[in-house]
């Protein structure tokens, strides 16, 4: 019975708990290995920065978390826009959008926290109402609102429709956040690697560790999106089947039984 905690009659014992596939296992192991390297290299192998000293070690997690948050919200926006344009009968795009937004919100929160700790060391304060920090906080709140809207009642298609419209608009905030350091006078430093002049002023191992962090966190994002959209698929199936059972039971009740 769907919605029951007992084993489903159609599930084989081997399939119980089977959400992972070979692809997600490979991605997961790759993410663990690259993450371990980032921790070791970021904390112990990379040199101090000439100006910031050891505080630069926060960069190896702060930049990749910000990158994944951007990536997650772009995936949410792209999947939502595709769903709106295609109006596909399947909800896979909506589930990918929802799963990606959940991950994006977590990584954005981590970006804000790690940025605050880094700011305490380099600026002497956890928070300032700087354009980059303010727009990032606004982006975070927007996607928390998006997740709240996804949690409202209605059918899966109603959920997909309303959340896709919000996500398609919310994604427009990302260029504003990214270019806020260029558009306004900002305390936050401008891009170090993707600078407009293309000149990278960073030690080789520091750059490699930063790049490894981006790869590790991107792999983690991919693993999480694949797994969490499968969770959303199973949750929708349980809700749909549960509703069907409830309707059938209601139809089988004798007329006037509720009087």
């Amino acid at each position, binding site marked *: 019975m769907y919605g029951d905690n007992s084993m489903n009659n159609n599930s084989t014992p081997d*399939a119980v708990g089977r959400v992972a596939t070979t692809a997600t296992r490979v991605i997961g192991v790759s993410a663990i290995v690259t993450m371990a390297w980032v921790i070791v290299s970021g904390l112990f192998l990379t040199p101090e920065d000439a100006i910031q000293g050891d*505080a630069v070690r926060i960069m190896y997690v702060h930049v990749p978390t910000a990158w994944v948050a951007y990536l997650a919200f772009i995936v949410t926006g792209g999947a939502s826009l595709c769903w709106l344009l295609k109006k596909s009968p399947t909800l896979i795009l909506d589930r990918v959008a929802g799963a990606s937004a959940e991950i994006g919100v977590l990584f954005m929160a981590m970006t804000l926290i790690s940025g605050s700790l880094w700011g305490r060391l380099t600026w002497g304060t956890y928070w300032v109402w700087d354009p980059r920090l303010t727009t990032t906080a606004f982006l975070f709140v927007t996607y928390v609102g998006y997740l709240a809207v996804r949690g409202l009642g209605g059918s899966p298609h109603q959920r997909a429709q309303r959340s896709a419209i919000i996500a398609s608009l919310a994604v427009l905030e990302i260029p504003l956040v990214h270019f806020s350091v260029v558009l306004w006078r900002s305390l936050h430093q401008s891009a170090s690697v993707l600078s407009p002049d293309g000149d990278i002023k960073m030690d080789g191992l520091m750059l490699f560790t930063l790049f490894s962090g981006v790869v590790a966190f991107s792999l983690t994002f991919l693993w*999480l999106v694949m797994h969490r959209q499968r969770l959303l698929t199973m949750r929708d199936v*349980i809700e749909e089947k549960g509703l069907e059972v409830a309707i059938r039971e209601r139809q089988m009740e004798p007329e006037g039984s509720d009087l």
Partner: protein
Amino acid sequence: MNDLGSIVATYVITFGSIVSLVALTIQRGRKLSRQVADQDKPWI
């Protein structure tokens, strides 16, 4: 290492959050998977 507390706190919060989300996802997946038939799992 200077500023050790803030640096370690950043790493613990970041990687701790990721590990927690992964663990939660695996646990929730196992629970839901028991309630859904194989034919409703397109990835199998």
